[in-house]
């Protein structure tokens, strides 16, 4: 019993692990920002699994971008509200 392919969480952790040398060489503040990006990707693991993409990291990058864009929209809204006041 069990699955042949690694689960999406395993794949995600492997991809994250692959950047551990890169992360180590970053400044502490940059490391924290990078961790945020991976957590953003992690919020969309189920969609990434369903996508069954041959290159999962592309999906993770898109998921990071997605969360970034959501944040841009949120901030834009705040600024617009402030301007209206």
């Amino acid at each position: 019993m069990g699955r042949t392919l690694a689960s999406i969480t395993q794949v995600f952790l492997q991809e994250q692990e692959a950047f551990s040398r890169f992360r180590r060489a970053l400044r502490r503040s940059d490391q924290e920002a990078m961790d945020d990006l991976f957590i953003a990707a992690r919020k969309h693991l189920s969609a990434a699994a369903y996508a069954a993409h041959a290159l999962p990291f592309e999906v993770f990058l898109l998921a990071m971008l997605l969360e970034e864009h959501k944040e841009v929209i949120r901030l834009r809204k705040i600024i617009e509200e402030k301007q209206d006041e």
Partner: protein
Amino acid sequence: MSKYTGWLLDLYPAASTGIALWFLLENGARQRFMQPFAVTFHAFAPQPQLRMLWNYLQKQPIPVKLAYTQKTELFEDKPITVLSITAPDPYSQDKLFRRLSFKFPEITYYDADLHIALRHAALFGTFPLCRCEFTLDNNTGQIIQITSLDSPWNLQSIRPPLRIMQIEPDEDPRHSQPGALKISTEKDTHLLSLRYPRPLMLNLKALLQRYDPDLLLTAWGDRWLLPYLLELTENLNIRLPLNRDSECELSWRPERSYFSYGQVIHRDQQIHLAGRWHIDIHNAMLYHDYKMEGIYELSRVTSLPLQTTARVSPGSGISAMQMVTALRQDILVPWHKQQVEAPKTAWELLLSDQGGLVYQPVTGLHRHVAELDFISMYPSIMVHYNISPETIRGPVNLNERLAAPPDKPPGLIPQTLKPLLDKRMAIKHRLLTLQASDPGYESLKAKASAHKWLLVTCFGYLGYKNARFGRIEAHEAVTAYGREALLRAKEAAEDLGFSVLHLYVDGMWVQQENADKVSDYEALLREIASRTGLPISLEGIYNWIAFLPSRQDARIPVANRYFGAYQDSSLKVRGIELRRRDTPLWIAEKQQAILQQLARIKDPESEMMSNTLSKIKNDVRKSIAGLTMGHIAPEKLIITQKLSRTLEEYRSSSPAARAASQLAEIGKVLRPGQMVRFIYMLGSPGVQAWDLPQPIQLDKIDIDRYARLMLRAVNTILMPFTGEKFSLNINSGNPSVSFPICTTGGLPLLKLMKSNLISQKIAAPKNELNLLPAFYPENKDLQQV
């Protein structure tokens, strides 16, 4: 010829005559009858080999009938020619087959190792406790004809009054040597001292003879009681009439540990009786869930004998049902499945090797949320889309199949599942009309629960490589349909203006401002049922629900850790401490009490909530103070963990391993899969196994550790409401307080069992939940129910 009517109690092979059947006759008598029963099995191989086998069989002392026949093999396109071998009775068939499988291992055998009860069920429609009419031959006194007057799918059948004798020791024998046996029947209760073996045995013998029970319901009968009584039988030479059939010996099955779904499972040794049943409540699968009522129901629908049903996993039950379907349809049941997985391209593998859809929920506290569940989703998919090893031969093109479901006759799996699914739906409908106080309510609930377990496992068995009728492509097709259905449900919810907080395999949590009435969800349910073709129901509407983040990182959501309060103040709790076996009762009880207090509050932002929260914090302070003052019984601090390997295999010594090695030193060796119970203690080795003979020294209990565990459990609940961690200053080292004297083993352990706490849904006080609507797609068969 003489005719009888009665209920079938037991059925097993009898030497030389065929099979023995025990009936409870209409006059109340329990009587054994014999029935001649020839058994046929089949061999498949190239022609010359079969000819060799034919010649060999003709020279054997066991007289067999031989014939070449055409049979259906589910994994082949056309019928195959097999050598059918008919032995005169089950004993000789078993003997013959063992010899053949050893001498001709390369031959493929079919129908070779089927349980005799399943063969009987396939031929005569019998099952345990079914009402039968049978005819005896006047010369031989043997059964020549038997007809079942009942059906396993009948909702109304009446069970005859059974004689049940319960035997339990006054102490958990794993913990300390019991001093007495309590023996109860519906007439009276006896207490027999274990200190005087001879009177014990004589009294027990008299009780067994006088009462002649149909069912011996024991506590630790398999592990301790029956082996102990048998030892006394030897020593004192007093034979106990444990078997009703005096010609049979007791049947022993050894204990074993095995690996399943990434977990080590330990099954205790088993002792089966002939002519009456022995069930050990501590060695019966899921007894805590559905009790005897569920076991009766499982053996009805699976046709397996009661003693077997009680001890096997629901997977074996589903397997048995499939075999009966196969036997009735003349489909060969392989002894060892020969089928291997068909090759796939990497792309096909990537697309198909997926499980159910599991989302990461939006963490935090939410209001205006409802939970919608597909009803028995995977079995419904198998029946509705006709998924079976013979109907799904390769990778499935979902879009094609959804557009035009193939018009094949229902396969083996849908045929097996459909009556079960229909019966479950009928019971659920019946439950809707009953009050919880109705006398039939509990029994129907136990039946529904037994069915649920069968239905849950039937999906796994489709993908299990050793399952006789498993096929991985069929298994994958089920999850593919499941993912599609859930995504369609998500789309329907979003189209109707709901936001989707969480999706979990067959359930979804949706939110809409002010959607607080059942009617607010009816359109959505109808829409989902029509888009997916599957039945869906409203599980409940929450006053509030909290989806929790990972314990390691509060920013990461996890799928199965949440708790919420329904509108009727009942709770749904998953993945938190009180659901975990390794949480001590003291903490689990507290967590549950806190949840119940919170469940009464409709609006989490109300003043009532902030008052309750400060009251809860005070209570926790008091509880921890009670712990430091030694007011908590050590029984409530027991940690229970499962041993995952043998002691030598542990690389680092976990608390459970250290406790198990303390037990091993006094000769109580635990096997992988067994539970070890211990208390955290100060100093080395940091634990004390609960089942050691010496009492726990109360002033050595690691109070800090328990206090920290308590705070963690409290914070799991409070954090979503307060957003901040609640902490106390816990001094390191135990405060110097005097401890009251308390001996271990004082509290009745049965009452302390956490299984009462960790029920599926905690204490729904009213019957409201059952009145929530369910929607069925345009499917005539389902609507008939």
